[in-house]
């Protein structure tokens, strides 16, 4: 447990908190976006915002994979699950996410669809192997962290000649989302959201490395510090960002040296490159259509593409009007800005996607809300 508890030491956190307070220039504000839902969770869980001086504000980003899946894509998964003979295998968090017409995968299951929960892509493959008479569709979501595993099971399915396995691919790419935040009118023109620097994701970066961030650190003059998921990692990364901003630098630095190298995990990258290609455009919840931000199966693997095998069509779906998830995902609003946060919308009865997964900002605020100031902003 040394490699977990060692990064949660309270005395070091207090010391870092003092160091940050001593480092900030009192007359300026520091708006730091944590891109990744894992960081959002850690920040809420350990009350990190409370350990920072008032002029250092953490802005939550779009890095919760469950939160950013657009409703039409989820509707597509439900439609797939209802086809006769189909077994839809999904990561557990997706089951409770509200879709159109108050549906969810969980409700579809209650209505007779064969929806199963998996912790890993490998389980979907195992189901297909064990039940050759079912058409097993893996509902693949997530960032660069889960895409290599999906690529691996597709290659395995081909090696084993599994004709009853396919993938409904919804993988998305981190750099595209960060660029969209930086290009968003709220950030660029309206000045409603300020992002002075980024806390870079741990696991995504373990796969893609730190190199992909170098472009926009330089081009957009925003420092990026890749941080581990433990509280001391996040605190030290904040200290490093403050330092860069004070010095007027905008570089990519790596706090999470135990897990991330500049080139990332080459083997995982090769698997992804073998099986997937970029879609010209992909819809995200909150961010809309983003160019070259999502992956699909290459035509060489068309046999394993559920969208082709089952001719899945997506239709536009209206967002629930009360739900502020789109604005929260863009960093424009906080969960506590939502009028139904914690009243109508709770983890037991989520109205929006941000209340479902532990990485969602609303769920993180709800779970640890004693530590969160009533109103941030």
């Amino acid at each position: 447990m040394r490699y977990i508890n060692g990064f949660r030491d309270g005395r070091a956190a207090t010391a870092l908190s003092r160091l940050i307070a001593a480092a900030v220039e009192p007359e300026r504000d520091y708006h730091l976006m944590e891109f990744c839902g894992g960081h959002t969770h850690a920040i809420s869980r350990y009350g990190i915002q409370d350990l920072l001086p008032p002029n250092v504000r953490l802005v939550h980003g779009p890095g919760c994979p469950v939160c950013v899946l657009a409703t039409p894509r989820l509707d597509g998964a439900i439609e797939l699950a209802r086809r006769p003979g189909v077994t839809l295998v999904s990561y557990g968090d997706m089951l409770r996410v509200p879709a159109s017409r108050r549906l969810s995968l969980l409700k579809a299951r209650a209505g007779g669809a064969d929806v199963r929960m998996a912790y890993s892509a490998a389980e979907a493959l195992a189901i297909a192997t064990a039940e050759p008479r079912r058409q097993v569709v893996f509902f693949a979501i997530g960032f660069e962290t889960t895409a290599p595993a999906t690529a691996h099971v597709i290659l395995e399915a081909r090696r084993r000649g599994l004709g009853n396995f396919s993938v409904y691919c919804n993988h998305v790419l981190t750099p595209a989302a960060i660029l969209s935040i930086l290009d968003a009118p709220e950030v660029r023109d309206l000045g409603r959201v300020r992002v002075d620097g980024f806390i870079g994701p741990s696991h995504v970066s373990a796969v893609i490395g730190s190199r992909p961030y170098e472009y926009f650190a330089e081009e957009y003059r925003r420092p990026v510090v890749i941080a581990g998921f433990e509280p001391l990692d996040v605190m030290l990364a904040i200290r490093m960002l403050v330092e860069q901003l004070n010095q007027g630098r905008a570089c990519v630095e790596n706090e999470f040296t135990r897990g991330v190298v500049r080139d990332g995990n080459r083997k995982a990258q090769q698997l992804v490159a073998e099986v997937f290609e970029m879609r010209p455009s992909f819809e995200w919840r909150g961010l809309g259509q983003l160019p070259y931000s999502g992956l699909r199966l290459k035509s060489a693997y068309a046999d394993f593409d559920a969208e082709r095998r089952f001719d899945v069509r997506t239709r536009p779906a209206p967002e629930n009007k009360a739900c502020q998830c789109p604005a929260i995902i863009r960093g424009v609003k906080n969960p506590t800005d939502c009028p139904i946060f914690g009243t109508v919308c709770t983890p037991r009865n989520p109205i929006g996607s941000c209340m479902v997964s532990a990485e969602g900002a609303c769920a993180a605020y709800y779970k640890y809300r004693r530590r969160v100031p009533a109103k941030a902003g």
Partner: protein
Amino acid sequence: MCLAIPVRVLSIGVDDWAEVEIGGVHSRVSLALIDGAAVGDYVIVHAGFAINRLDLEEAEKSLALFDEIARRLGEPADALHQRLS
């Protein structure tokens, strides 16, 4: 999905499956996405797949730094700033 912690590889079986342990809890993860993992290594696991090995030397360096920061809690911040820059 993202909330993962490093686990220790206890044994490696067929098809890149490994038995791993964290705080006494055992489970099975796939090593198919990484090269050269060996018994005794720590790996970072995400949704059932190891996505990287934990670099223990770097981990120890970070821990030593945090240790030092904690020990010097009472000292004026300036002394520590130098250590960090």
